[in-house]
């Protein structure tokens, strides 16, 4: 049950998002445009693994979701940093909402954004881009939800770690490319060098790609992938809980 004041905070963030949806539209539209370009490469990846009768979209859609969803970590951080920029953070803290309610309210909209991006990419991928889910949509959604939870938790950890929004965006941008690349979301995992393939399980994108692949190709239930993603999310949440001081001043625009 979400406390009433958390709902109020989430509703306010939703109003802000409605006024300026551009930061959410771009990470959905851009991957949709890119999927046709990367599909052939991912099809070759399947061929290399002797997996036949695939269009490439079975990996291209998840890959673009994993890569571009990571940028939502920045959106998640932004929900906190802009309050500092607008001088509303102390007003929020001086309200009857306690720390737990504030943080909970702040993660609702980024979580919905991540899930919305997942739904749109896979939905449109299935309708227009040749994605065929041979396994279970339920399992696929479980992976998407676990990854979304991880992204929001990562956003909290980044916010807790960074003093300025520039630091947060640097981590997000570089992190998105690094984690996506190592997890096999930029190029097929089969084409990565062997040292990179060895390191891959250390990043959540690998487990997300793995889980999506199991759910899409019908290779069983992606329980292990979901569990590992939830473990990553837990680590981020624990880090944020230990490090996040709501009374700390943060700098948004410098």
């Amino acid at each position, binding site marked *: 049950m979400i406390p*009433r*004041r958390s*709902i*109020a*905070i989430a*509703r*306010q963030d939703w*109003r*802000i998002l409605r*006024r*300026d949806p551009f930061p959410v539209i771009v990470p959905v539209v851009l991957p949709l445009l890119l999927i046709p370009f990367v599909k052939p490469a991912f099809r070759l990846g399947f061929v290399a693994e002797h997996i036949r009768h695939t269009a490439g979209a079975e990996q291209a859609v998840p890959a673009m979701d994993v890569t571009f969803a990571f940028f939502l970590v920045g959106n998640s951080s932004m929900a906190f940093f802009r309050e500092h920029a*607008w*001088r*509303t*953070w*102390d*007003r*929020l*803290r*001086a*309200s*009857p*909402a*306690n720390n737990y309610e504030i943080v909970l309210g702040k993660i609702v909209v980024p979580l919905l954004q991540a899930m919305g991006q997942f739904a749109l990419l896979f939905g449109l991928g299935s309708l227009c881009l040749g994605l065929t889910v041979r396994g279970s949509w339920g399992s696929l959604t479980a992976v998407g939800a676990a990854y979304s939870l991880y992204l929001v938790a990562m956003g909290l950890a980044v916010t807790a770690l960074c003093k300025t929004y520039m630091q947060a965006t640097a981590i997000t941008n570089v992190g998105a490319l690094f984690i996506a690349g190592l997890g096999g979301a930029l190029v097929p995992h089969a084409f990565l060098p062997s040292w990179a393939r060895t390191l891959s399980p250390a990043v959540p994108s690998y487990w997300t790609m793995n889980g999506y692949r199991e759910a899409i190709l019908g290779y069983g239930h992606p329980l292990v992938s979901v569990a590992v993603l939830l473990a990553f999310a837990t680590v981020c949440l624990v880090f944020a809980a230990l490090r996040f001081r709501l*009374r700390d001043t943060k700098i948004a625009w410098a």
Partner: protein
Amino acid sequence: MFLSATRLEQGAVEATSAPSERVRGLGRTACAPRRPRSVLAMTGVHKSYRDVSALCGVDLEIEPGEVVALLGANAAGKSTLISIAAALCQPDAGGVWVDGVNMLTHPERGRRSIGVATQETGVYPSLSVRDNLRFFGELVGLRRKMLDDRLQRVAEAFELSAVLDRETQGLSVGEVRRLHTAMIMLGRPPLLLLDEPTTGVDVSTRARMLELVRDLAMDGSAVCYSTHYLMEAEQLGASVAVLHHGHIVARDTVQSLIGSYGRSAIELRFDGPAPQLLDVPGVQRSEATLRLATGRDPAHSVASLFAALGDSIAQLRDVRLIQPNLESVFLALTGQASSSNGERLEVAGDT
């Protein structure tokens, strides 16, 4: 009525005139009789930032219906005091109670009784005035019709009705200031903490804000009003707490303070820079002004001042006798003059 009958009977509120119609709707309804007590009580509050002491053993109590003007120069500790009262920062030592709730142990519960308007305006620029107000109404637990009603009343009281659906970033400075303060009124908190609420606003907005604060106090709210503008304390009919280097050096009504500390002074204005008069103790010098507290023997003070001027008397443009007022009290207590433009006078010798 907008004012709690119980509080009136107990004499806790010294209402001298009826609040304006605009604020009538904001009033709390009469509550069950209770013992009058301080809405804000701070005892022995200390706060340091590294090796700088911001507050040194501050004691402060504010009763329902009372406006306390918190006066002090920059860095006197006013904003720190307000932050601690609102539990936005922790004191190093001391106790803070709001409406009987210990703010150090139960800050979340205490905050339900507080409305804080920080020194810097904090509003959501991309949202409308209505959405800004609505959010703070939702945070204090208002819903649906009650929220809409309260929002309309607050907007009316703060003359924001005409701009309710406009984006905040398109408002004037005065409108943003009014919105900034209005946002804390939705929940009708018993304690209002206003940190320099009239900074940067024009004369008419300032007058309107002061009127609203007076009316809210008459309505039963306790108000802690931090300001640089001494005149505002008098206009508010506030009692005064003078904060100097982290200490409350005086706490009384304006009239009592003037009676205790006020001194008349003579002020000389020059054409060009005022001369340095090191031989006359207590002379304060700003760019073109000299000021001397005249004490009990004004004739002697004036004579010694003129005698010390020497050739500089040729540049003398204006001589003014200043009667005891809050400014002279502030001067006597802090050794600093505060003026409307924030000019700070240098003090030669002992004041």
